[in-house]
């Protein structure tokens, strides 16, 4: 929408955005069409609009850089009408989704037969959507007839069956697995007695759900979808459509289907890496009520009573998201001193300046500030989420920086916290200790920057950091973090290959591969596991399939330590030649010179820009003198 003037479009309805999308498509402006379709979908997430959005996105998908993802749904009910909703939602989130559906109630055959349609589809994600009435029919339809022993037997049978699906899927596919929990009935068979009986119907179904949770916890890359919580959130009485179930095996009311699709999308955001890494918050009317420039620090609304309570709730929600590893920043039009006075004077404030990795309190355009925050934190614009109560600011950012995730806060501050908690861009399926400590990392980073500016030379600076690093092969504790790093590292990444936890686990077991990780700590703190290399040994060569470094530690020669250890290991295995590949992307320029600067010679240039590099057999990569090796735990 870059050619549009003014921000009136915010007040326009879906029809206007539809017209804009059509115009942009007709005039061959796919990026503007994408922005218009995305906004249309946000404003009117209905089945009809989904059809329109999917058809139009499909016509321009080739000119957009979307993340491809293949989802296969094993199911016991009709999910077809939810698929256009899911695909439209995914397109709007930058994901090009291919969806395959299993036959009704075909689970074991699909999972166990390597030639089944499920395996032929080669899914990235498998969703297992079964219902209580199908996998625990006795618990569902004749619970009142059952003895306690029969109830226990039914629980065990359903639990074993569901757990075996998870286990067998894990052995037979590298896909991520999302398993629907079972739903309790609308009305318990025992009536009031349900509440006071030793094992009622709802309790029995919860026990099966507990078994599903245990099963997914025992497997990598498997997750449970809490159907009961989803239905409860929407309201059980308005969720089910018994007539549609009896006619077309579609149990859910038409208007609720979008919420099933949303629940799936909550998993697909983190599974496809389409998540926000930084949450940039406005201050006035967002973190507190009122305008500090007018009301003063003592006059703004924040606290446990109305109207300040809504803002306190939002601060709590922001902190919860930060604990998952989302970095916080401030972008506010204010006088810096006024804003800081609120943090200093108002003891009710949950968030403190130290919680924010970057702070922009000034009168500069917010889009400009967002650009500078992305630069300071060394992330792409598509890693930023923007939280602001002002629809004009939101629309301005949307138009100037379409990559930024803009959170649409509702008019009522009492709904702010819920809106933030509902954003799938802040969902994480694993969190590491690195995520929880991210706030502290940025504090260390500021001190490192001060040190760097006072150092006489780069080597001096490196030495003064007193870095200690540990290079070690992947192990059970590090696999999740290693996979996470491969999925989200864009800048210092020579091949940008993404690996699931399952794939890393397999490579770590393989005799022909090494998966190496590097941990870094220095005088300012422990950065944790921040680098990964995947090496394939073939013939007398070692080929570097992946080598990447978190942006936390770029520019401290940590990559040299990792490469040096990698080369030594390869040579110890008798591999003379070390081969590296560089595959350029829009973001990995920081890794471009990596091989050349470590003595590799370019042996091949592909027409598509990729290049192959070789380290001659006689050559080593010297370990940086200013880095002390940590003895790797578990290795003696």
């Amino acid at each position, binding site marked *: 929408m870059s050619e549009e003037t003014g921000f009136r479009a915010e007040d326009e309805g879906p029809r206007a955005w539809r017209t804009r999308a059509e115009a942009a498509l007709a005039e061959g402006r796919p990026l503007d069409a994408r922005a218009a379709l995305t906004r249309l979908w946000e404003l009117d997430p209905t089945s009809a609009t989904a059809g329109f959005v999917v058809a139009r996105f499909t016509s321009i998908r080739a000119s957009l850089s979307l993340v491809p993802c293949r989802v296969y749904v094993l199911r016991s009910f009709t999910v077809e009408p939810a698929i256009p909703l899911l695909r439209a939602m995914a397109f709007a989130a930058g994901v090009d989704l291919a969806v395959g559906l299993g036959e009704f109630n075909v689970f074991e055959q699909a999972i166990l037969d390597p030639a089944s349609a499920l395996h032929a589809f080669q899914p990235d994600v498998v969703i297992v959507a079964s219902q209580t009435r199908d996998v625990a029919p006795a618990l569902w339809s004749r619970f009142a007839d059952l003895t306690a022993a029969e109830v226990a037997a039914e629980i065990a049978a359903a639990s074993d069956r569901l757990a075996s699906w998870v286990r067998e899927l894990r052995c037979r596919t590298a896909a991520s697995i999302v398993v629907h929990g079972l739903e309790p009935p609308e009305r318990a068979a025992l009536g009031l007695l349900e509440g006071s009986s030793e094992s009622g119907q709802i309790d029995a179904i919860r026990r099966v759900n507990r078994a599903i949770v245990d099963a997914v916890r025992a497997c990598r890359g498997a997750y449970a979808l809490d159907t009961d919580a989803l239905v409860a959130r929407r309201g059980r009485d308005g969720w089910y459509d018994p007539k549609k179930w009896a006619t077309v095996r579609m149990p859910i009311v*038409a208007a609720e289907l979008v919420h099933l699709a949303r629940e799936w999308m909550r998993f697909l955001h983190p599974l496809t890496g389409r998540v926000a890494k930084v949450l940039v918050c406005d201050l006035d009317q967002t973190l507190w009520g009122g305008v500090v420039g007018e009301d003063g620090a003592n006059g703004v609304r924040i606290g446990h009573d109305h109207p300040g309570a809504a803002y306190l709730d939002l601060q709590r929600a922001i902190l919860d998201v930060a604990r998952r590893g989302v970095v916080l920043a401030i972008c506010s039009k204010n006088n810096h001193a006024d804003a800081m006075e609120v943090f200093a004077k108002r003891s009710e404030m949950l968030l403190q300046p130290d919680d924010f990795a970057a702070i922009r309190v000034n009168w500069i355009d917010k889009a400009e500030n967002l650009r500078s925050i992305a630069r300071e934190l060394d992330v792409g614009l598509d890693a930023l989420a923007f939280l602001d109560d002002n629809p004009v600011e939101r629309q301005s950012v949307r138009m100037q920086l379409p990559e930024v995730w803009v959170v649409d806060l509702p008019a009522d501050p009492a709904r702010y916290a819920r809106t933030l908690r509902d954003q799938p861009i802040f969902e994480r399926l694993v969190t590491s200790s690195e995520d929880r400590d991210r706030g502290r990392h940025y504090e260390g980073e500021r001190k490192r920057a001060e040190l760097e500016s006072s150092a006489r030379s780069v080597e001096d600076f490196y030495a003064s950091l007193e870095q200690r690093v540990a290079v070690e092969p992947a192990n059970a504790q590090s696999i999740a973090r290693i996979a996470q790093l491969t999925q989200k590292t864009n800048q210092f990444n020579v091949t940008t290959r993404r690996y699931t936890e399952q794939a890393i686990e397999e490579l770590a077991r393989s005799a022909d591969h090494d998966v190496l990780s590097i941990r870094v700590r220095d005088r300012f703190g422990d950065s944790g596991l921040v680098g990964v290399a995947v090496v394939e040994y073939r013939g007398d060569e070692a080929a570097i399939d992946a080598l990447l470094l978190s942006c936390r530690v770029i520019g401290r020669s940590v990559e040299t330590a990792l490469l040096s250890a990698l080369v030594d290991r390869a040579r110890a295995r008798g591999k003379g030649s070390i081969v590296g590949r560089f595959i350029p992307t829009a973001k990995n320029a920081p890794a471009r010179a990596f091989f050349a600067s470590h003595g590799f010679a370019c042996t091949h240039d592909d027409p598509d820009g990729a290049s192959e590099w070789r380290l001659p057999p006689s050559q080593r990569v010297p370990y940086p003198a200013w880095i002390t090796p940590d003895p790797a735990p578990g290795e003696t």
Partner: protein
Amino acid sequence: MTSRIAADVTQIVADVLGIAPSSLTLASSSDAFPAWDSVHHLNIMMALEERFGIAIEPEDIERMRTVGAIVAVVEKHGS
């Protein structure tokens, strides 16, 4: 009122099928559109229920095979 519902229904059917509304008339029937298969028919029903806030009776679903027939059922709910 009638023409408004007819226009909305035409738009919904076109959107679900991924075609232009101008290619549909009240007489357009599912037989003439390969994309209008049983899955898309169900999707059209769900889109109508969602948009108009109605519950279409199972008996009506099979009858609604032309745009005009769909309009008639939707109007029945409106009255």
